[in-house]
């Protein structure tokens, strides 16, 4: 049988509007992500990448399709798990382009809150938060407010927050868009390490082709259609020796 997949979707479709104003943002999207696998999702703007993330992140449920996270079927056609928000806080982590930290909490509190939301005692949640900050190299900035952190530090804190609930799945929407090439690559490598060390499936929406060699699998989306990308094509794009 094997370990449950971090994510499995099939027939995922999202339609906005009705009749002549109908817009199909996602068409029969299917994806399988193993635990510990890091997946890139490429595509031009408006292709449906963020819509896909919102669907699998249980933020904006699809019109139809099936989603299973960590082996648990959470969406199946018109049926959905009764408390999607609870499932989201217990099993999914989010990282976005803008760090999106809660402005009135300092770095460690931004992570601690996630632990407390899933029922950990405050002291345990705080200890876990400090461990994550130390592991990501920003432990010294634990008591700084978000406005006192650099862009890279904020992103690391956000990644630590995404790990606080020991998720099955981490969704990152263009996390390196605001960073330079070097820092962007560092963050991608960090995602890879997080995926491999914590056993979470990681999906990263990105426009940045330079760090694609970091990913185990690459998907492409265009006009709402999702398909695996050709590995050779990707390697050529990044100038990988195997492409020659």
């Amino acid at each position, binding site marked *: 049988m094997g370990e449950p997949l971090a994510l499995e979707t099939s027939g995922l479709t999202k339609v906005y509007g009705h009749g002549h104003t109908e817009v199909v943002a996602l068409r029969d999207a299917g994806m399988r992500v193993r635990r510990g696998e890091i997946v890139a999702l490429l595509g031009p703007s408006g292709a449906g990448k963020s819509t896909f993330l919102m669907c699998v992140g249980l933020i904006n449920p699809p019109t139809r399709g099936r989603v299973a996270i960590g082996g648990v079927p959470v969406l199946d056609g018109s049926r959905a798990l009764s408390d999607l928000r609870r499932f989201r*806080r217990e099993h999914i982590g*989010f990282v*976005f382009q803008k760090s999106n930290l*809660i402005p*009135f909490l300092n770095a460690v509190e931004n992570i601690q809150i996630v632990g407390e939301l899933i029922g950990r005692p405050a002291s345990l949640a705080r200890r876990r938060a400090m461990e994550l900050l130390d592991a990501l190299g920003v432990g010294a900035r634990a008591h700084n407010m978000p406005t006192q952190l650099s862009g890279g530090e904020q992103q690391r804190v956000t990644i630590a927050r995404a790990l606080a609930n020991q998720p099955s799945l981490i969704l990152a929407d263009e996390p390196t868009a605001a960073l330079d090439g070097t820092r962007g690559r560092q963050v991608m490598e960090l995602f890879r390490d997080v995926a491999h060390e914590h056993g979470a499936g990681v999906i990263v929406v990105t426009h940045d082709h330079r760090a694609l060699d970091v990913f185990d699998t690459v998907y492409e989306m265009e006009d709402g259609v999702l398909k695996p990308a050709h590995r050779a094509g990707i390697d050529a794009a990044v100038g990988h020796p195997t492409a020659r």
Partner: protein
Amino acid sequence: MNLAVRDIRHSLGRFVLTTIGVGMLLMIVMGMGGIYRGLVDDALVVTRGVGADLWIVQRDTRGPFAEVSRLPRSVVDRVAAVPGVTDAREFVFHTIQREHRGQPLRMGVLGLGWPTDKGEGLPLIAGRPLAQNHFEVIADATLGLGLGERLRLGKETYTVVGLTSGMVSSGGDGLACFTSRDAQAIQFNEPGESARLEREARRARASAIDFGRTQPGVLERASGPSRGLAALPGPAISAVIARLAPGADADAVLRSLHGWSDVTVYSGVQQEDLLLKGSVDRARRQLLLFRVLLTLISAVIMALIIYTLTLDKLHPIALLKLIGAPNRVIVGLIMQQSIIMGVLAFGVGWLLGQRLFPMFPRRVILTSDDLLRLAGIVLVISIFASLLGIWKAMRVAPNEAIG
């Protein structure tokens, strides 16, 4: 972790200013209630101070406070003779305004039943009770008079021998306690010329009637002071106050006095009721209306403030929903902030009131019951004020956190 406290800490300056503003509003609400209590207390100072069980006043009047009452002094002796009455005294009370030290001085003149009552029961803070039947006065500190100061009223000069605290009339004027004779002299003081004119008029009336022409000495007495004419009444008193003997049958005494055709009798409670329904009733209702309006205004302002604070953190609220925070966490954040603001504002209002209320021209009396009641109302207002912000927060979608 308390999100409400952390958000307050993050926007401390704005929160503090807002709380002070709401606190000042609540201070005014407290003050209105305190002024109302002070009004009632001031109205009842005299009635409670004299300790009368019964008030005997002019027939068919609601005197001596709600309206004017005039009784001959002889009623005192008649009341004292009623079985069950242990003590009957004159009660003289009126309000005057005279000039003193170049400024208008308005005071309530209270006549003490000398020699029975020398003012020993008054709340003296300086000086002594009255020691003689004339020309001494015990004045309330609000009149601004000093011990030993001399006060010219009518033809006579009175020396301040004692000072009291908290003795004011229902109109808020400080009370000055004289002997009842002096109080009547002040009340019925008239210039010498008008006394001479009245005596001449009296002589003319006496000489025009058969009684004056035929009775020896009447014409001579008509030209003199009116106390020489037994048939003519002396200065009237406002009321007679009576105390019942311990164990006396109050109903029997009342039945006896109700049978007299020239007086009306009120118990102490009835007299207080007349006072409160008479002179202070409109002021009470006005103050109550203001209190209600101010409380409603406070509620609206708090609701707007909490709503605005919520609007400022819609993005963090969306983010909290995104990371899976249940609604109760978000509701708790907003409601706790509202309650914290309400509680702190109440404290600010109370503290400010403690400093400012003593400076008010009328007494402001804050009772524990009133404060507790207001605290309860503020708590309810705080909860309801948060509902608008909560409604807005519940409409926020999690994906608004990522734009």
